[in-house]
């Protein structure tokens, strides 16, 4: 962080000002002129919270994607299909058993198994052949999409939120002051907050596992130099399979989350594949912290954009990507 400030004082200053303005917009009681200029504070706060929680969902998808790419250079363009598959599995489990938690576990295990199969059957055969991996995974995503369409049809599915998470919760953020002088607090869906907290926990746990454990050390060494790591006697193929299974399982979990937040339907696979592509392009390939930052930026940009400039929301996301590419082609937090 301090190195960034030393290297790019102008950018650091701009980011600090932007963060300060953002915090003020969130915590202060808006003066009347501002409400007239850009609308109600409740709308703004809702957009911010939706953006942050959507960022949590994007992080779950993109971190698995970027982990697999970072370690194995495996270009898995079927990652979106794993997301949708996990979602459908979660829907089936939660309607069959009524247990929301169980649906996460089953979705994780099943998508992880699919990931193991992918790694063993597809990627091990074409290590280092980017273009073939891309083509094969595109082909697989077409096949998976059609198989899922066959099995589940073209309907929209929504996973039922469990009873203990239904309903809004009052947040200690004042959106307005009533004429009687009584403050109005922001009400926000409980389930989205819980899921966001869970994705933060997963992210922190991943960071700790990568940076503080032996297996994490092996994975990081693999990202830096696979060949030397293999030469030191680590069973690298086993590590590959485990990491692929974990990344795929994360996509499956994200599918359940997405099915609870939004809905599941054909086409969501492509949407989330693209979201994770944009997130890792912005954040930097192979970096978990980059995925987190990218997911937050893209989630916020998407939600704020769709509230304030609905026609051009997608262009805002795209402009962010262009800007990042123009300034730092390797992504904001990539090391190389």
């Amino acid at each position: 962080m301090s190195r960034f400030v030393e290297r790019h004082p102008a950018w650091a200053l701009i980011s600090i000002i932007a963060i300060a303005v953002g915090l003020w917009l969130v915590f202060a009681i808006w003066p009347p002129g501002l409400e007239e200029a850009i609308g109600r504070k409740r709308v703004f706060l809702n957009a911010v919270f939706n953006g942050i929680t959507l960022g949590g969902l994007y992080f779950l998808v993109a971190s698995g994607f970027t982990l697999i790419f970072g370690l194995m250079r495996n270009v898995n363009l079927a990652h979106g299909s794993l997301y949708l598959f996990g979602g459908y599995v979660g829907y089936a489990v939660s309607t069959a058993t009524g247990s929301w938690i169980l649906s996460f576990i089953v979705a994780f295990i099943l998508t992880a198994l699919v990931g193991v199969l992918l790694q063993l059957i597809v990627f091990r055969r074409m290590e280092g052949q980017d273009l073939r991996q891309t083509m094969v995974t595109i082909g697989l995503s077409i096949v998976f999409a059609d198989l899922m369409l066959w099995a589940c049809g073209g309907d929209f599915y929504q996973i039922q939120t469990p009873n203990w998470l239904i309903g809004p919760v009052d947040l200690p953020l004042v959106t307005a002051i009533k004429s009687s002088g009584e403050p109005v607090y922001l009400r926000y869906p409980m389930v989205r907050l819980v899921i966001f907290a869970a994705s933060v926990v997963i992210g922190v746990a991943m960071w700790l596992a990568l940076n503080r454990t032996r297996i994490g050390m092996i994975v990081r060494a693999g990202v830096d130099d696979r060949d030397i790591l293999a030469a030191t006697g680590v069973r690298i193929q086993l590590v590959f399979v485990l990491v692929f299974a974990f990344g795929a399982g994360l996509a499956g979990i994200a599918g359940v989350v997405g099915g609870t937040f939004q809905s599941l339907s054909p086409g969501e696979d492509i949407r989330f594949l693209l979201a994770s592509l944009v997130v890792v392009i912005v954040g930097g390939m192979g970096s978990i912290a980059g995925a987190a930052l990218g997911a937050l930026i893209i989630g916020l940009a998407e939600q704020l954009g769709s509230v304030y400039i609905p026609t051009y929301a997608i262009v805002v996301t795209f402009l962010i990507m262009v800007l990042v590419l123009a300034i730092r082609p390797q992504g904001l937090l990539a090391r190389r």
Partner: protein
Amino acid sequence: MSLAHDSRITVRPAALAQRPARIWPEINHPAAWIVAVILLIMPLIANGFFLIEIFASTLILGTMALSLMFLAGYGGMVSLMQLTIAGFSAYMVAVFGVSGNANISLGWPWWLAVPMALALATAFGTLGGALAVRTEGIYTIMITLAIGAAFYYFTNQNWAIFNGHTGINTVATPHFWGVNWRADIPFYYIVLAVAALCYFAVEYLSRAPFGLALQGVRDNPRRMAALGFNVNAHRVAAYAFASFIAALAGVLQVWNYRQISPGSVSVGACIDVLIIAVVGGITRPIGPFIGALIFVLLRTFALDFLVRIGLDGNRFRLLIGLGFLAIVFWSSDGVIGLWQRWRQRGSASRSGGGHRHG
């Protein structure tokens, strides 16, 4: 940049290196003459449905895939936004020309609207290319895919220019010298002429100094840079040329269907262009047209075929996906590679292990 260099896509140069440098390589081959004659007398053989739905569609899609083949085969840059450029050009024809949406279309005559569309689409593709060449290999694929997706969602949301998800309908087609050029037979010849022009332009350019330098950049960018070539300028120029080809195909596309909507620039359609180029063979300009013919035939007849053998006709995309997977798994040169291997196996016994990749 070591990471970018490691993940650089290497399209196998061997197939090109083995060929002796001739000016018009395909033209001496008897099969090429037969195909050319068949294409020219096609209106005598085929009825309107085959002429337009099969052959004109094949040539249009093939031209779009040709622009991808030029970038990927000679430049080593796999761009997934070629359909987006074609779609942009089609939209611009509809916006500047005459269409059913009088409050959007400016009503220019076609000879003014088409150059405008071509220029804008080429500029759009070149800008996208300038962005994409900042990265290499797999990143190029991701960025061009993201550009394509952004354009698709933008056309869906924007009503002022692109008329949202309904698109622009009843786009006027050219009508002059007493000929309705959208009538089946004249239109077929227009499409054939444009496709042939693009094909020979790519063939010619691949042997011109620019094309040779581009192939040098593909094989070893650092060495080319050391020799004094401006690597990025060559790449951007390649995008400009490929964008122009894609834009031409886009004009034909909008004249063919007389309408353009976000559905025709969707992400799936972008990927279809890649599939076409890869299935046909990405190392030679004829490949995309072969791939397009296979794709169009499958798209048109797979439903009937599947129903006839007792399967669900809706599984057409499954069939395409599985076929694509099979080709990518066993031949990186697509159908052309398979054919060449088959011929080599027949003629020479010195097979060895050298043909594993096609």
